């Protein structure tokens, strides 16, 4: 029952906000995945989407504007037992925090980044976000947008993400399925969620979504080999070039090692005892380290 996942804090989003859909689907996904509550961490940026950890009854870290990914990465590398999900807005993850989004793709940690994409900066009165299309004028803009939109899926491919999906905030079943796959994926994932902002974005309405999206059919997102990877990338560029936004799992690439495995290849103890599992003292005394052996090269012999 997804209501078990309510923290009891009042969700203060506007009525009709797409965040309610994401909130519902997320609780459903957590419930169906059967992960123990304490082993989850929701890490978020700021703004309306950034509040989501407070409403879900799992540990939550509501961070700084654009910085959810570094916080999440620090958590995940220190304690790989934790399931870490990042929630952020399009302004957060694709604007101020874009550099971190790219760096995460390069590392491929087992973290799913959920981009709440509503095209605007809601909590600061609806300024254009990096996903608002060129020439569009939402309610609060004085002039039509003079910047082009960035495409998070294509950015994800360029950065090395191994899971890419797009869903819609008010298709709960579809979104839940995408979340479940993304959370279970062993690598870095981006799930872009198209989300109406009823207060500010008078363009991306439920009606608009109906007319301007379609569900992917006959598209196999799973990368089989290097050759297939090139084909998939070309295919995705084609999909993304279309006038309508494709919804569904767009890419799953299980061939690349996740960051934990890469760390374990360098730090021999990492796989069995990551930092959070290691002792640092023995009842208040430091571990008995053989100084002369460990710091051999500094000794004057």
């Amino acid at each position, binding site marked *: *029952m*997804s*209501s078990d996942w*309510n923290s009891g804090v*009042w*969700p203060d*989003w*506007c*009525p*009709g*906000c797409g965040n*309610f*859909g994401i909130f*519902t689907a997320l609780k*459903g996904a957590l419930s169906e995945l059967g992960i123990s509550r304490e082993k989850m961490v929701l890490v978020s940026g*700021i*703004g309306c989407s*950034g509040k989501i950890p407070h409403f879900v009854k799992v540990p939550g870290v509501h961070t700084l504007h654009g910085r959810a990914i570094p916080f999440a990465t620090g958590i995940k590398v220190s304690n790989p037992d934790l399931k870490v999900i990042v929630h952020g807005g399009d302004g957060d993850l694709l604007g101020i925090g874009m550099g971190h989004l790219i760096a995460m793709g390069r590392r491929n940690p087992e973290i799913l980044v959920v981009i709440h994409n509503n095209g605007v900066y809601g*909590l*600061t*009165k*609806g300024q254009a976000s990096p996903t608002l299309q060129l020439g569009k004028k939402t*309610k*609060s803009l004085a002039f039509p947008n003079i910047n082009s939109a960035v495409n998070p899926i294509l950015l994800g491919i360029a950065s090395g993400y191994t899971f890419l999906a797009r869903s819609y905030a*008010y298709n*709960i079943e579809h979104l839940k399925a995408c979340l479940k796959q993304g959370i279970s994926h062993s690598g870095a994932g981006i799930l872009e969620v198209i989300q109406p902002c*009823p*207060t*500010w974005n008078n363009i991306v309405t439920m009606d608009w979504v109906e007319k301007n999206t379609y569900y992917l059919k006959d598209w196999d997102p799973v990368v089989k080999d290097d050759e297939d990877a090139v084909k998939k990338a070309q295919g995705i560029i084609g999909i993304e070039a279309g006038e309508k936004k494709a919804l569904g799992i767009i890419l799953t690439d299980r061939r690349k090692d996740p960051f934990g495995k890469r760390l374990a290849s360098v730090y021999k103890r990492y796989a069995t005892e990551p930092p959070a599992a290691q002792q640092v003292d023995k009842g208040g005394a430091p571990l008995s380290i053989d100084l002369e052996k460990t710091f051999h090269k500094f000794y004057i012999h």
Partner: protein
Amino acid sequence: MGSCKGCKWWRPDYFFDNLGECEKKSGICPENKDSCEMYEEKSETEFCWCRDCRITFHASERDLHRGHDFFCRTRVDQDAHEYTSTGD
């Protein structure tokens, strides 16, 4: 015949929920607590707005809102953004 509360045409205002819009009438209406000739029973919708909890909730959580007043939709003033201040 039922009252506005259970009617599919009724959209209470988000802030002043004793007032609202009826899709069968024009202008602002007070909520009719008695019976109404336009009444049509609201059907199950995926998302509802609960007046007691003041949140949008999903059908799967209906049990949590037993005995509460909830509506298929709410009415949001189209100019609501004009009254908003920056918040983050």
